[in-house]
């Protein structure tokens, strides 16, 4: 199930990354090497009937989704939260024009 160069380009797009052609080539080689040699053995194990373990404590205890009371517990300081934003104006984040 080796990846092709065009699949790497598609994955990079899905990941919102822009590797150069040389980086794409290196990525392809590393991914195929790792998956062919090290990930492939996973497929040989019979996992029929095994429940996936998405969070580790679920192996030893029930992990119900906790709910809290529907009450205001903290006040958000918008100026503090936006202090590290690259571009804001009047409390709004600036992005390139989305709708022409």
């Amino acid at each position, binding site marked *: 199930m080796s990846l092709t160069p065009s699949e790497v380009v598609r994955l990079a797009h899905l990941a919102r990354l822009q590797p150069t052609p040389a980086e794409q080539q290196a990525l392809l080689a590393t991914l195929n090497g790792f998956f062919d040699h090290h990930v492939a053995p996973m497929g040989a194990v019979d996992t029929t009937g095994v429940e996936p373990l998405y969070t580790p404590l679920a192996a030893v205890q029930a992990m119900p989704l906790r709910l809290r009371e529907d009450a205001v517990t903290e006040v958000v300081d918008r100026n503090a939260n936006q202090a*590290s934003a690259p571009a804001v104006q009047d409390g709004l984040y600036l992005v*390139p024009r989305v709708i022409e």
Partner: protein
Amino acid sequence: MSTELHDLGVAALGQALASRQVSATELAGTLLARQAALDSQCGPSSLGAYLAVDAEATLAQARRADQRRADGESGPLLGVPIAHKDIFVTRDWPTTAGSKMLAGYRSPFDATVVERLAAAGTVTLGKLNCDEFAMGSSNEHSAFFPARNPWDLSRIPGGSSGGSAVAVAARLAPAATGTDTGGSIRQPAAFCGITGIKPTYGVCSRYGMVAFASSLDQAGVMARSAEDCALLLGAMSGFDERDATSAERPPQDYRAQMLAPRDGASASRPLAGLRIGLPAEFFPPALAADVNGALRGALAALEKLGATLVDVSLPRTALAIPVYYVIAPAEASSNLSRFDGVRYGHRAEPHGDLMDLYKKSRSEGFGPEVQRRIVIGTYVLSHGYYDAYYLQAQKLRRMIADDFSRCFAERCDVIAGPVAPSVAWKIGERSDDPVQDYLADIFTLPASLAGLPGMSVPAGFGEAGLPVGLQLIGRHFAEGQLLHVAHALQQATDWHLRSPK
């Protein structure tokens, strides 16, 4: 005092502060001066431990600690200086996670771990270097500069909590926080000859920890003894409603648990009755002879203390590598999608449309290892591959956890083995092949996947006088027992007291 202040650990400093032999302000000043002398930020002779230091902010915290003591407060950590891995967000220091993406970022809040340690009176010395977003096991993936192993500056200190290990080993800080996703506390602790504990998943809050792989990330302590780890872990752990996977348990006194004698123990045999399991898969032929030799010495010391060594098997140990390197990148690709060049973090200039802004900002902001893992994660979660890779890995994760449960139910109380297959390697030696680093994580990944507590305890020295760590793995929530075993070993041996020149 005959011993220099920087040589004292957390417990000893707590006593010196309580008896007013030293003030928090003097102590902070001493360690800041030592940091300035030994850790200037570039050049091959620098340790590269700290990414951010702010003497004024540190001294202000120290004065507050002294004031609290003057007001009648006490406590083993009041005025004790520590440093934080730059993965924990802090209001008073910038937080970068070792990434250009977050260069200069200031958090509007403190992580729960930081907040709780501050409440206990600790004074923050600064923020410590790490692999970018905690992805790496050498600290070479820091976007700023590599941290260097104080035992040999040409070698890596391990990672991702490399700066934490360096600061503690080089006596720049008595203790530091770290985080461990697949070994990031245990492996650098082993490579730098210090004591590190990764508690059970859920023991420390993840709130305010820059997320890498949320089902694996766990905070912990790196210090010079099990006792110091116990003191800090007690203060920083506990239930936090702001973390959806925080374990709902009452606060724990880990120092008391560490000191509590076992049934049937005696002064000379404090570990009487303890069964230590040695997985055959943790001692393969490929394990470096020097590491194996040091471990056998430590295991013999544990036997002398009354423990019994038993053979066990963790048959899916080798599979932990692909399982981890499917699950962790999958979670990383999701977590790191938040870095979009809009709300915080790096924004590429100039840029075209919104898509171009995203792609350029992320490609410029993330380093090669992070990009590699994001692409791997995107791959294993993508349509057509999800079942074969991601779902299969989560099923195997259950089988790996079950293997541990079986060992603990039938054979042993604690599992022991190496932390890493070799001692610390040379900086640059493996940078051509990232997969080499992945494979070297083999002994730390299984406990991470199962969410079990793990420690690295100094176990002597291997090739070129470099430290070797003994890994101890316990049942879920058995931190107290691991600390008890490590403490017993440290009462009988002096490996943990050796320091680099």
